[in-house]
């Protein structure tokens, strides 16, 4: 979505959300009609800190969050409530470790505006972020896909698959920010072919 506000001063707390709305004059219609708390509105925005050349001051780019972020966050919260045997076939529930890794992955996906096709619990345990390319097979499946598997042990694995070649690449990824960011860029390249 579009950037609506770029203050060059360091703003603090929820005040900046109010100011962002007023300065940009871009309050969503729904917010105008129904008065919602500042906290609720805060969840509709994404703050991205970007460096400003020749200035020691940080710049905060504030933008409206795409719908997928709220959907993914809600989904993740729901998956955290699953119990063991949630499929009736012995599926393991996601552990706190896997949920923590999943939250890290989601935070980096937001930075890259990289929307997963879906966020699901894996039967073997953990959380899976599933991504798809554009091309479809004759059976309606996506030819190119990727996933980030947040395992119950706390390990993060990246999967890049291509159904036309029958090729699957599984790589361990350090969930620390830099390496995860690089990995997400590789995934975006993979999905674009």
């Amino acid at each position: 979505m579009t950037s609506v506000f770029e203050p060059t001063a360091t703003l603090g707390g929820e005040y900046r959300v109010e100011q962002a709305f007023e300065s940009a004059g871009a309050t969503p219609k729904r917010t105008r009609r129904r008065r919602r708390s500042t906290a609720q509105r805060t969840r509709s925005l994404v703050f991205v800190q970007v460096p400003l050349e020749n200035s020691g001051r940080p710049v905060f780019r504030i933008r409206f969050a795409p719908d997928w972020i709220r959907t993914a966050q809600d989904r993740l919260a729901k998956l955290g409530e699953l119990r063991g045997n949630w499929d009736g076939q012995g599926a393991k529930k996601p552990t706190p470790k896997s949920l923590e890794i999943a939250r890290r992955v989601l935070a980096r996906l937001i930075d890259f505006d990289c929307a997963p096709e879906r966020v699901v619990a894996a039967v073997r345990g953990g959380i899976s972020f599933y991504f798809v390319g554009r091309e479809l097979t004759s059976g309606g499946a996506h030819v190119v896909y990727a996933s980030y598997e947040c395992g119950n042990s706390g390990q993060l694995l990246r999967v890049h698959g291509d159904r036309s070649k029958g090729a699957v690449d599984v790589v361990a990824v350090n969930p620390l920010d830099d390496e995860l960011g690089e990995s997400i860029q590789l995934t975006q390249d993979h999905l674009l072919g």
Partner: protein
Amino acid sequence: MRSVDPCFAKSEALYRRISIDQVDGDRILASAVEMPACSFDRSKYSTRPESVIDRAKPEFNGIAKLMVGDMPAPVSVFGVPDKGPPASYEFYPEDLPEPDNEAHSEVRIRISGKPFRKRVNDRVAVAACEALAAPMRVHTPPT
């Protein structure tokens, strides 16, 4: 209960229930299966594929199918570099009838030539789930 039947014909189908979150077109997501062992119902001892559906889990109203003849080729997973060749895990079906489900079986993996172990590391499990899901197809689409 019937006795164990280790003979699986290549033309035999194995069924497993799935939800709409676990499919992409006619393909099954790797998150829908587990490793080193994944439960299936054998068509040989099942009156119909729909018998895998459990009313207590209404969202799992779809059915995935795997033909025994389409069992994946062994997957090789590299371990620590310079520590010898990668371990090769082979897939095989195991007949495991249960008192309340005589059709029950599992698709398992084991290091070639070695006995089955209940635990594998995450990387092996994910690679094996991907390999197992690849030849599986949607038999009855979930809604």
